[in-house]
């Protein structure tokens, strides 16, 4: 395993060197690709770029985030910087993160921004807004292959969110109006 990891890092750094004439925009994304080592609940490999953004190129890598079976309640929000109602509800998720960060509640903001224009959109947005919740990028553009796996009743319009703990799960099929609405849904899971 360590050998493979080393090999991969070696290969990716070679790639990085080979493509380094591609200027900063690619460099931003490529950077040092670190293979995330398994923690107790992490089952997937994915790459974290130097800004700390965890990037999932395929849904298969990402899927475990929707099915972690432990005593933490996960609040997963699908959003994008280009989606106005998504950006409008982000503060409620941030507030939820602040209020519950000392409990076993984890907010994960899943950006569906386009990987090829992160420099123009997501990175500046994150820099400006300093989101405290964890942000990850799901960059699998074959959306028809994975939307059903997130939630069969979802047809692909964003924002949507999922709050789950173990097998208990609620799908929020549109934006939430205010913090209370979001918190009430969280409470209904926490109190089960």
């Amino acid at each position, binding site marked *: 395993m360590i050998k*493979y990891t080393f090999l*991969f890092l070696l290969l990716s750094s070679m790639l990085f060197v080979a493509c380094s004439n591609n200027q900063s925009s690619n460099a931003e994304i490529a950077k040092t690709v670190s293979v995330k080592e398994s923690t107790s609940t992490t089952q997937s490999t994915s790459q974290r770029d130097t800004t700390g953004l965890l990037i999932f190129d395929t849904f298969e890598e990402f*899927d475990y985030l929707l099915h972690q079976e432990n005593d933490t309640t996960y609040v997963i929000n699908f959003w994008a910087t280009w989606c106005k109602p998504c950006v409008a509800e982000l503060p409620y998720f941030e507030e939820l993160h602040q209020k519950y960060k000392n409990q076993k509640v984890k907010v994960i903001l899943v950006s569906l921004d386009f990987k090829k224009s992160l420099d123009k959109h997501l990175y500046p947005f994150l820099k400006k807004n300093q989101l405290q919740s964890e942000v990850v990028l799901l960059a699998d553009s074959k959306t028809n292959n994975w939307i059903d796996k997130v939630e069969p009743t979802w047809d692909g319009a964003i*924002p949507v969110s999922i709050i789950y703990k173990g097998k208990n799960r609620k*799908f929020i099929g549109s934006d939430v109006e205010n913090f209370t609405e979001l918190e009430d849904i969280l409470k209904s899971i926490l109190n089960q």
Partner: protein
Amino acid sequence: MKNIYVLACLYLGSLLFVACNNDSATTSTSADKKQPKAIKVVNESPKKEGLKVGDIAPDFKLKNINGKIVSLADYTDAKGYIVTFTCNHCPYAVMYEDRLNALQAKYAPMGYPIVAINPNDPEVKPADSFENMQIRAKEKGFEFAYLIDEGQKVYPQYGATKTPHVFLLNKDRMVKYIGAIDDNAQDAEAVEVKFVENAIASLEKGENPDPNYTKAIGCSIKSKK
């Protein structure tokens, strides 16, 4: 026992992923089986009404960017209609503008015109105003009708939920396909399956499209709450 199996799968999967990073789609099997059985839906997607494959789509009278009122019945020679809910502001819609032009160039002469409808409320989304539709259509050289759903009466009848959202109808306005134009919005070069083109090819052969329903990420349709 089960745990060991899962761990072994995961271990193999991660090995595979590390060994062939570009081929990670093959490592999905363990995750796929873990779909929860009972999912509670708090708010259903705003749709739920609307057309299904096999339904007869309603005709409409909507204003085109040239000021004229357009109905599907006006297309007397049509063998079908590519009714496409789209708009100016949505990045996903923008990514498909050139592909819509290509579809129109290829299929309108065959009898399958694009009939594009902007379903958004311009008061909520000024970028999607009638004037801005005219401007964008001119910039991009749209050859197809680009209609405004004034009063937002038509998109709920169709059950459109996002832009872009295609309803392919046959000449009797029967819905034959609902969904995305192709399987890769972000990268036209990387498209592997052209859903709408394949669906039209099926209609031309007298067959039903397969798939007849696909999903894609898109911008929710903007209306007042």
